């Protein structure tokens, strides 16, 4: 009996969602969004999904869609919880023209891998996700675009090496990794060990139990260990507390390097002065000065359709990540349309588009994103796309880029990734692809 009530609401809700697009005659491509605008990570969620929606709006308003195909979307609140993410997935997956899923959550992404593989719709996990999904032979539908956790580690170590004067200078130095007490936090422990063995530096891993409100003892230990650099692999409230506690024990903040989930305004603002001088990795630079962001301000916010409530957050780290993610998704659709026609695409066709998402520096400039992000080169075997990273330093009011674009050591990491993917394939009975053709699964 409540089922009928559901049915009615679902019909009305989807009608409203689909009706968001303009004239019904045109073809549409749909983005279901498992967003999180409340809960402990709301700041990141509002920024990212805000940027993503802003970019989609830009394409719709400025270009009339992608070659005439309008982009539509609807949101379902997940609060960053796995089962809410799954519920939203089940609810929205039957809408027509689903292009791709962009959950921005490790837990939700994991829960979806089996489902989307069955549904044949791509899952985009930009800057995060399952590292071994980089191997597109085993994970045809999962795309950890731009940066997977291993590449991120390599990027950070390369940056530190740069600061010390070269990779040979790493020998004998000491690096502490302060990580969040969760699987996400522990994920890169083996890679740090690998790089430590290779370059001859000492690495110590110190755990901060979730949620990270208290880090007194950890930072006292760091004070005792006197490392040359501390890498902050945090999440949520752990980040500002880390910076404040570092100040408390007198560790110099400009020797703390944050990872890609410790790099936003929301992570540093609550720490106040303690964060001045803090450096963090990023795949997209902050700021409003990039042409595409300027266009969004003019076109989208000018028309009153801007998604962010607080306009000061335009150009922030998460907002720009959302914009970049929007660019990647839209370009994949555009590339796929080039092959399959200017119409609503199926999930498999969009997947093909992602597997040919090759944006070099020139194309990035055409898109108005020069300096915003570097480039991407996704192939059917490499779903990460070899994203470049840069580093930004916080001056108390904004982030300033302090490094060139750095390349992670992909060649070193690829064999490990392939090994892990092969183990997954064996466990699940998946036959890895041997060519670009549609994947063959035996389960």
């Amino acid at each position, binding site marked *: 009996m409540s089922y009928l009530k559901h049915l009615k609401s679902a019909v009305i809700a989807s009608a409203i969602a689909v009706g968001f697009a303009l004239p019904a005659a045109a073809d549409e491509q749909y983005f279901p969004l498992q967003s999180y*605008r*409340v*809960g*402990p990570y*709301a*700041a990141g969620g*509002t920024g990212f999904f805000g940027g993503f929606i802003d970019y989609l709006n830009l394409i719709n308003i400025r270009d009339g869609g992608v070659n005439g195909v309008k982009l539509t979307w609807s949101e379902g609140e997940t609060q960053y919880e796995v089962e809410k993410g799954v519920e939203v997935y089940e609810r929205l997956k039957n809408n027509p023209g689903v292009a791709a899923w962009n959950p921005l959550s490790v837990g939700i992404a994991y829960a979806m891998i089996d489902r989307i593989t069955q549904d044949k719709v791509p899952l985009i996990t930009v800057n995060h996700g399952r590292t071994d999904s980089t191997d597109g032979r085993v994970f045809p539908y999962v795309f950890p675009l731009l940066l997977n956790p291993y590449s991120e580690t390599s990027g950070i170590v390369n940056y530190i090496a740069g600061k010390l004067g070269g990779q040979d200078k790493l020998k004998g130095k000491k690096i502490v990794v302060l990580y969040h*007490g969760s699987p996400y936090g522990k994920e890169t422990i083996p890679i740090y060990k690998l790089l430590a063995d290779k370059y001859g530096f000492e690495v110590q891993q*110190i*755990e*901060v*139990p*979730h*949620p990270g*409100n*208290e880090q*007194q*003892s*950890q930072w*006292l*230990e760091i*004070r*005792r260990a006197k490392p040359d650099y501390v890498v902050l692999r945090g999440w*949520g*409230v752990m980040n*500002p*507390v880390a910076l*404040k506690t570092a*100040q*408390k*024990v*007198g560790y110099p903040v400009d020797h703390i390097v944050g990872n890609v989930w410790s790099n936003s305004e*929301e992570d540093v*603002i*609550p*720490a*106040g*002065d*303690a964060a001045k001088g803090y450096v963090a990795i990023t795949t997209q630079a902050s700021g409003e000065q990039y042409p595409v962001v300027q266009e969004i301000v003019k076109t989208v916010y000018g028309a009153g359709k801007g998604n962010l*409530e*607080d306009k000061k957050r335009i150009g922030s780290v998460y907002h720009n990540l959302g914009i970049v993610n929007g660019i990647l998704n839209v370009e994949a659709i555009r590339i796929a349309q080039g092959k399959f026609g200017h119409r609503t695409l199926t999930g498999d066709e969009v997947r093909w588009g992602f597997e040919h998402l090759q944006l070099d520096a020139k194309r990035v400039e055409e898109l108005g994103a020069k300096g915003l992000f570097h480039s991407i080169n996704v192939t059917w075997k490499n779903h990460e796309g070899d994203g470049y990273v840069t580093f930004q330093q916080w001056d108390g009011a904004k982030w300033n880029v302090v490094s060139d674009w750095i390349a992670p050591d992909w060649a070193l990491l690829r064999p490990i990734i392939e090994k892990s993917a092969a183990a997954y394939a064996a466990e699940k009975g998946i036959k890895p692809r041997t060519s670009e053709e549609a994947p063959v699964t035996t389960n």
Partner: protein
Amino acid sequence: MFDYQFFLEVLIGGLLSGIMYSLVALGFVLIYKTSGVLNFAQGSMLLFAALTFVSLVERGVPFWGAFAATLGVMVLLGVAVERTILRPLVNQPPITLFMATLGLSYVIEGVAQLLWGTQVHGLDLGIEDSPFEVYGVLISQFDLFAAAVAGSLVAAFSLFFRYTRIGLAFRAVADDQYAALAVGLRLPRVWAIVWTAAGVVALVAGLLWGARLGVQFSLSLVVLKALPVLVLGGFDSIAGAIVGGLLIGAIEKLSEVYIGPYFGGGIEGWAAYVVALGFLLIRPAGLFGQKLVERA
């Protein structure tokens, strides 16, 4: 060679952290002492107070103005809670009231974020948190300040309970509700005042914790740190809240540093609970708590 300096640093850091826990526990004790209710909503009251204060400050209201305004809001909250929740549930057993406060915590959290949004805010109390060293042992300025504030609050409440008429009324109600009623004390009024007092404590604790962590959603999780303190110190003792807090803070930090490595680290989250649990088995009413007459 045992590193005494490091040990002292960890110990002192732990004790000072513990004071922060005591501050949260204080709010619990006030309410439990006078009405037997374990107010799980204390954490969300903390969040609400901090969010209100910070949002007012960000909109240009000066520090003390915002403080007074938030104080007013907490008073209103206290009165509202007494009227809508405590009165209808007045004859229910304590655990029912506990469940009600659980529900209340959800309501307050929801209202706080609905009103003020879910963004993260920084809170600057004007205290530079640069460390200073005493014989090579590191001590944090901010923590000392927090300890001083907590200490004065505790002293104020202790004096209040001992030397004022209302304080006397509180103690009477805590001792025996029916007798208090019999001598003419108005319970609803007493409870409204108690909840307001707890609201004030929540405000102070919210400001201090907010300055430490930033004001956002997970601020309400500090309540989970206060529970072992209550267990150790006794649910209804102010002195117990302080001593318990100091003990838990110290034990937590020391165990993390010295025992943690055997487990691979990260044991802070449950160490306090396990210690409290062990303690309970020896002394079920806590260090200073009154022995409950358990008519099983």
